[in-house]
């Protein structure tokens, strides 16, 4: 009996938690399926309307933005290029750098270690203005390289890979050395296959991180051709139901990734703890 009561209390508290986390998104979604006229006269909606297809296809394909030069579809494309670029570049460079730090006798190893890891103290938000000036000196404003490179300049992934490599037994390298394996072969044939889970977790993390960037694309894109989804949200003009539909669409890619790959993601985080 007491067991039954306590389990009811558990479910009750969890349901309140669910209400707090899910209802706001549901209200925006339900409202996005009504016409703007209806929303303007009746406010936010709890129930679905009939304008779902009409609203969503209008947002995806209609030219919008300040100068009406870009569609939401193009913004999604830009966001994907940016997020994939950031995730790929940081996984590759960090995987290599961590390998160089852990598996080699390096001259000035301590200096190189600090040159890499002290950068963790300086998130992009702290160097936003000088970064913009550097990018315009390099002629990288309004390019994908300009959106991707400064955000890939991060040692977080290197830190994770370094911790992971340190946990791999020394015997592996000893055995490989007896077989006469060189450093590049060892990296490609042994370490990369072993790090698969970590690579996937870091890739997911960096992809969502890149997709969700707001301030940097806001500063780096004066041309609407390079607008991304998350920054476009604030600047996009249109009717109220257009904006609701765009908010809902903007959260779909990262949410799907996290829901389907949550096990992998959490595993990756906790391998390092």
């Amino acid at each position, binding site marked *: 009996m007491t067991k039954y009561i306590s*389990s009811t209390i*558990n*479910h009750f508290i969890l349901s309140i*938690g669910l209400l*707090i*986390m*899910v209802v*706001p*998104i549901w*209200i*925006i979604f339900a*409202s996005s399926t009504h016409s703007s006229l209806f929303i*303007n006269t009746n*406010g*936010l909606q709890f129930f679905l309307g009939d304008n779902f297809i009409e609203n969503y296809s209008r947002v995806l394909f209609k030219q919008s933005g300040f100068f009406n030069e870009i569609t939401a579809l193009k913004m999604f494309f830009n966001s994907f290029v940016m997020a994939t670029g950031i995730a790929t570049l940081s996984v*590759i*460079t960090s995987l*290599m750098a961590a390998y*160089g*730090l*852990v598996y*080699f*006798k390096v001259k000035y190893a301590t200096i190189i270690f600090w*040159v*890499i890891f002290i*950068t*963790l*103290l*300086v*998130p992009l*938000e*702290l*160097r936003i*203005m*000088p970064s913009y000036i*550097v990018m315009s000196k*390099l002629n990288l404003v309004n390019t994908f390289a300009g959106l991707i490179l*400064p955000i890939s*300049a991060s*040692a977080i992934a290197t830190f994770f890979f370094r911790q992971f490599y340190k946990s791999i037994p*020394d015997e592996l*390298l*000893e055995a490989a050395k007896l077989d006469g394996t060189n*450093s*590049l072969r060892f990296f490609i044939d042994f370490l990369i296959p072993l790090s698969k889970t970590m690579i996937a977790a870091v890739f997911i993390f960096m992809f969502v991180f890149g997709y*969700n*960037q*707001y301030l940097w694309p806001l500063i780096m894109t004066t041309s609407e051709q390079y607008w991304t989804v*998350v920054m476009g*949200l604030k600047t996009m003009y249109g009717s109220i139901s257009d*904006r609701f539909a765009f908010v809902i669409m*903007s*959260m779909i890619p*990262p*949410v799907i990734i*996290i*829901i389907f790959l*949550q096990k992998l993601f*959490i595993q990756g985080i*906790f391998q390092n703890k």
Partner: protein
Amino acid sequence: MKKVQFKSNYSQYFFLAPQLLILLIFLYWPIIQTFKDAFTMQDAFGFGSQFAGFDNFLFIFSDPSYFTAFKFTIIYSFVITLITGSIGLLLAVQANKVMHGKSTYKTLLIWPYAIAPAVVGVMANYFFSERYGLLHHLFNNLWGFNWYENVFDAYIYVIIAGSWKQISANFIFFLAGLQAIQKTVIEASIIDCKSNIRRFWTITFPLLMPTTFFLIIINITYAFFDTFGIIDTTTIGAPGSETKTLVYKAYIDGFKGLDLGSAGAQSIMMMIIVLVITIFQFRYIEGKIHYN
């Protein structure tokens, strides 16, 4: 490092080069520029600049709006950490206990973690708008809510917008922390102590201490940096500049006000704050805080 390593004259640099190159160009160059800015004074028309010593730092310390931003950032980090930590812990404890529907609860509670702060801000905008806003109506009926004139109301607005998605992050890590506690410890404690609540505070919570410290750091970093997108899509610092975080103020002064010297000095002050936080973080990661 490893006891067994490769010995080579050049191949280690082949592996280190790509990252070092990107860091040097896109991180060290701007940082050096930040230090240069912080110690130079530019004239109002941008024609010339001269070495200014610590003048920019003295200027921000004598600027009352810097302290307003400082105060708000501290309050904001504290309240967000407290709210999201306690709700996250409460939900994680319940989710860890239930027999049925565990994975459904987990999936639905983890989900908002992936949403960008700026998107959350835009959503909060609708709930706090005078025209459609459900929360605006609710609070208005309770005490006459008006966030663009009333500082307390603006705080409520940005705190709700800022906390919502972070509850998910706290929930994920607390749940993982709870699942890592060994079953035998819990079973043994059931024999010694019948009260559920006392058992939680004397056995389970101390075992969660490392997770709690880790999350405090995560939440503070979030409140400092990631809330930029939330502030910029909700209050923009309103009523006056009472809801500007330090990061937001540095951006406005540097990018909108074109005062590079002040923005540089503010960035360096924040680097010092992050340095202090990171030292704590390293203490945790190196395992100096141990309870199990």
